[in-house]
């Protein structure tokens, strides 16, 4: 049985696939790039959505994971390019799968560490302590000269994926799309699972969860680390999209933008991040081309969305969320 939300989701997924393929066929590669951007931002936000949407953990520091993923990709690729050894004589790599693994590992581990401390707090304090950690990483990246500091780090040639020419925008898009869909599938499974149940219940009522015998801290910590890893993966892809990494990926604006994407699309919804990312990127692109004052109108549209479309775009399309 298909409910309205499922239909909206399928349409969104199909659109994200169809539009760039059509654009490519009509010789408009830029729209492919734009769609790739949507897919990657959606992936980053989907990572955050696991913590924020399901677990109610409003992390204002996910840019740290996004940026770490990006830097993992950038640093590995730079070393692969120059041949300078990185660690234990390893000279990095330009193979995407390895890079992804490293990016997820790095982001996940850092997420584990940050979560370990941050999850002692809750509510607004959690928002701020995650921000604090992200700011530390940010300032470190700005002033650490080895990999470009504030100027960032260029990846001269896009990294490779076995059997695919990643320099072709469509190929790279398809890779990103595949990763996004995999992540969303993972999200569906987790949400419906025992783990997801406990995580969502902990958001609604922490004491209740503890009194049935589930320690919320461990559940949340796991969710936070997994969420960080997914956002880190998105960061690695983003680095490859732009062929460039810089501390601005780590800035609090980025963290804020990820949150905005989720709310815009519909908090806790499977396709919320995708809907939000698509909307945001399209607004930014269309308005940016129309007027120099585009930020004003972007603000106006976002404001309209919060005030009049409760539950974000998907709330508008598919009505109130249901929890079995």
């Amino acid at each position, binding site marked *: 049985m298909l409910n309205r939300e499922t239909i909206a989701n399928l349409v969104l997924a199909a659109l994200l696939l169809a539009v760039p393929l059509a654009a490519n066929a009509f010789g408009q590669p830029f729209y492919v790039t734009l769609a790739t951007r949507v897919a990657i931002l959606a992936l980053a936000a989907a990572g955050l959505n696991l913590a924020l949407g399901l677990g109610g953990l409003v992390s204002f520091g996910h840019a740290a994971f996004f940026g770490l993923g990006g830097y993992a990709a950038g640093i590995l690729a730079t070393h692969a390019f120059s041949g300078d050894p990185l660690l234990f004589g390893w000279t990095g790599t330009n193979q995407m799968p390895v890079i992804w693994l490293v990016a997820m590992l790095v982001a996940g581990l850092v997420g584990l560490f940050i979560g370990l401390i941050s999850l002692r707090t809750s509510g607004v304090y959690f928002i701020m302590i995650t921000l604090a950690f992200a700011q530390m990483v940010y300032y470190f990246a700005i002033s650490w000269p080895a990999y470009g500091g504030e100027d960032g780090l260029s990846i001269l040639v896009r990294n490779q994926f076995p059997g695919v020419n990643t320099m072709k925008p469509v190929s790279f898009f398809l890779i990103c799309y595949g990763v996004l869909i995999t992540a969303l599938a993972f999200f569906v499974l*987790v949400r*419906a699972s025992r783990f997801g149940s*406990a995580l969502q*219940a902990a958001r*609604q*009522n922490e004491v*209740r969860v503890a009194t049935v015998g589930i320690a919320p801290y461990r559940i949340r910590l796991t969710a936070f680390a997994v969420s960080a890893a997914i956002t880190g993966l998105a960061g690695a892809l983003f680095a490859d999209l732009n062929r460039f990494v810089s501390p601005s990926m780590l800035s609090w604006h980025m963290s804020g933008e990820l949150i905005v994407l989720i709310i815009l699309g519909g908090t806790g919804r499977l396709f919320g991040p995708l809907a939000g990312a698509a909307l945001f990127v399209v607004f930014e692109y269309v308005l940016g081309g129309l007027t120099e004052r585009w930020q004003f109108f972007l603000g106006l549209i976002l404001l309209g969305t919060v005030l009049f479309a409760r539950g974000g775009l998907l709330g508008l399309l598919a009505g109130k969320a249901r929890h079995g």
Partner: protein
Amino acid sequence: MAEPVLELSDIVKSFGALRATDHVSLDLKPGEIHALIGPNGAGKSTLIHQICGTLRQDSGTIRLAGRDIGHLGVAERSRLGLGRTFQVSSLAPEFSALRNVMLAVQAQQGSSFRFFKPVMRDASLIDRSMAMLERVGLQDRARIPAAELSHGERRQLEIAIALALNSKAFLLDEPMAGMGPEGSKVLTGFLDTLRQEAPILLVEHDMDAVFALADRISVLVYGRVIATGTVEEIRRDPAVRTAYLGDHA
């Protein structure tokens, strides 16, 4: 005499200058309902909190089935078999009644670190949870979110959750509160049978229920147990009458 399931000795808890529980010792024997009564603010809920671990006692020991649990966290204690209800209902509001119970069943069955099997297709979870809802008479309301249940229904749901935990001992903080006369009657009957499963420490201001159910009663006043005894002994105790019962005896 059977070993007590739950045994408190010399529990002390202060909030600043206030002694909320003052050297409280009591126990809970298999098969019994032990009622804890006392004026408002006497420290009953504070004691329950200490047993469950949401508050840590300043001194004294708490044993469950012979094991010292005084230093464990809330979740661990409940896994060891403490089932409780709250004085003010505490549920996952967005979840349906069923999923609220399923959470307890899942915790009871073991690890929550299972990432892939959907709970709503997990018969072992659903069947047992439905059975619990049936026992408290909420089966028709299984799909309603907890936030939309009426006050009384929420109390029933809390009990269903405590049941699902397969507890060794129940701690019920004012389960009758908010129940209509009919509900109270049903619940009284229900608790009467529940004691076969595990003994109950019952905090309650509804004296009709207490007198009908309790095997033993302890009276807590200003954090201190001033009397313990059978229903008749307590009813007759003049100190209890002035401190708590008034003409209700």
